[in-house]
């Protein structure tokens, strides 16, 4: 009989294309106490490296996964259980654990990419979860919906979550009329229209945050709340990241630019750089990003003071920043008066990846309140 106090730790599925991951090392030892959100072990895929965080509290009872070994997604890697659960039950659990096989026609555990033909063109998106609340994740400049790979499943536990590729990004249409904040916001409106989403909690990263604020200003009834992560639009400062990103022609140029995004530079794997390079080389991308960058951040300054423009009437706002943000200074976090502000240590511009557990918890709490 399986004791409900036993919780498996399995190889996670980060992003749609992940099928396997390599265990790098365990961060805890048998017998150590675990709280929800604690990082337990480090895993590396061909796209990214990250830590598997505990979804439950308990004690780490068994480490099954071995360092430097590759396992398919959903493989049992370890066991968390209450200290009162006997060893023999842990043994039995481990012995009887069966890797859930993908059956014919079975819904994939992870989100599927879909396309919406909107009034601004074809936009790619994923949809996950089925809660009453709707959340829309909006990526930043040069990003795509896969940026949210550590967040989407967690947020989908209690809500219907959408993540889209903005025009010019990911696999959405690579054309945008008059590239700038207004046209991107119109694209988000078009997306919501097409999918029949009347109002949603917007979670925006960087440029996506500015879009969320712009949306709140122009379509207040459609925005239930805002979560602004390392957001643009809260100050004039912006480093050279945007220009450097647009100008980078090869891997050598691009790697140091992408390293600016993270506090932990080792997260910038070769695969990550390659993926960005492949994206940048698609026809139309470079020109569009250049124009977009000029419109939003030309001359090394942020042009759209969307935060200021909101004044003091805006939906409930949560502002999250990574202290080590090298792209937009974390000081900007204080510039939206009345918002809940969290500046997390040991994280940079991609705080929602580097501190996924914390960020997910904050967002979930914000949506619930």
């Amino acid at each position, binding site marked *: 009989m399986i004791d409900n106090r036993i919780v498996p730790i399995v190889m996670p599925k980060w992003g749609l294309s992940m099928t396997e991951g390599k265990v790098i090392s365990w961060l805890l030892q048998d017998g150590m106490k675990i709280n929800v959100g604690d990082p337990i072990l480090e895993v590396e895929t061909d796209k990214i490296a990250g830590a598997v965080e505990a979804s439950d509290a308990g004690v780490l009872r068994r480490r099954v996964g071995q360092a430097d070994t590759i396992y398919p997604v959903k493989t049992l890697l370890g066991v968390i259980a209450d200290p009162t659960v006997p060893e023999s039950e842990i043994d039995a659990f481990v012995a009887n654990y069966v890797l859930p096989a993908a059956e014919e026609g079975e819904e994939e555990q992870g989100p599927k990419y879909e396309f919406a033909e909107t009034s601004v063109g074809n936009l790619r998106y994923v949809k996950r979860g089925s809660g009453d609340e709707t959340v829309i994740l909006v990526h930043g400049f040069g990003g795509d919906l896969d940026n949210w790979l550590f967040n989407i499943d967690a947020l989908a536990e209690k809500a219907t979550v959408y993540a889209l590729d903005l025009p010019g990004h990911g696999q959405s249409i690579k054309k945008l009329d008059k590239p700038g904040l207004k046209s991107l916001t119109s694209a988000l409106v078009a997306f919501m229209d097409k999918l029949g989403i009347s109002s949603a909690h917007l979670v925006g990263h960087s440029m996506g945050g500015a879009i969320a604020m712009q949306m709140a200003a122009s379509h207040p009834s459609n925005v239930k709340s805002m979560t602004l992560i390392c957001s643009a639009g809260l100050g004039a400062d912006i480093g050279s990241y945007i220009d450097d990103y647009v100008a980078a*022609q*090869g891997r050598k140029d691009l790697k140091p630019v992408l390293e600016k995004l993270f506090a932990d530079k080792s997260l910038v794997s070769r695969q990550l750089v390659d993926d960005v390079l*492949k994206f940048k080389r*698609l026809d139309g991308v470079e020109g569009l990003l250049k124009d977009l960058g000029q419109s939003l951040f030309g001359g090394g300054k942020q042009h759209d003071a969307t935060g200021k423009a909101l004044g003091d009437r805006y939906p409930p706002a949560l502002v999250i920043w990574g202290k080590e943000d090298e792209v937009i200074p974390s000081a900007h976090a204080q510039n939206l008066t009345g918002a809940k502000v969290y500046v997390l240590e040991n994280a940079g511009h991609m705080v929602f990846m580097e501190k996924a557990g914390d960020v997910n918890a904050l967002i979930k709490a914000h949506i619930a309140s």
Partner: protein
Amino acid sequence: MARKITMRQALNEALDQEMRRDPSVIVMGEDIVGGAGGGGEEDAWGGVLGVTKGLHGKYRGRLLDTPLSESAYIGAAIGAAACGMRPVAELMFLDFMGVCFDQIFNQAAKFKYMFGGKAETPVVIRAMVGAGFRAAAQHSQMLTPLFTHIPGLKVVCPSNAYDAKGLLIQSIRDNDPVIFCEHKNLYATEADVPAESYAIPFGEANVVRDGKHCSIITYGMMVNRSMDAAAELAKGGVECEVVDLRTLSPIDWDTVIDTATKTGRVVCVDEANPRCSIASDVSAMVAQECFKALKGPIQMVTAPHTPVPFSPFLEDLYIPSVASIVAAVKKTMAN
């Protein structure tokens, strides 16, 4: 949307998308449509190994089957390029260069220079290269060194479907004469290839594997073999960096020098014959530029100084093997 397609499909897609984008792109070669003048099917072949299949229906009049006269039609492609078109001529096997080489190396390659900068010859000559197909001596060579040697030509040799599409698109958009080498044994290999158009710049090598102990510098079909060798060596704790040159002219000397400086040990793997090969070219440059950084003697792994044999047993010995690459790495590590 990136999906898995073969190199053959990727090349077809590149031609399709460029022909759609630019009406001055025309394609010519022997049997690139197939069935010309006969009573059977139109588009009977779409190229001897099917790379151009289906294009005839979409672009009527822009794919020309040619008589068996390489000199004439390769020259015609070059002449048309000098007059403002962007022809893609297929020289079925690069081994056939003998019957049309003058048009390529004395005409196309030299127009811009000889005419004082006042000519442009944006022609692409696609040709099959490489052994392993049991096609024997006159249909299996890796003649990349001969073309790399000629100033005025560019030489491209992709190792996978993603690179193949992006490099062929770049070749067509490029304004110089390009020799685009397609390894016949790689046509069926698959990779994730975006459906959208994209171009990969020339002169950019791809580091396909990072490693700190030894650099393996290679191109074409040998990239896969080098990766296999690297995997085997990794079991023994030797981490190899594998560099796919992608374009031989222009060549990415920066990446070659970086990797040689980083590891201090270099193995050049080349399917061409050893004398005056790409391997010897790269080795010499490394020896000249990275002498102080080298910890061991540079090794070259190439085919032997023989024509390509027919009998499968012999042909398999001819092509540099994973074992020979592993041995070369061990040899340079042995100091």
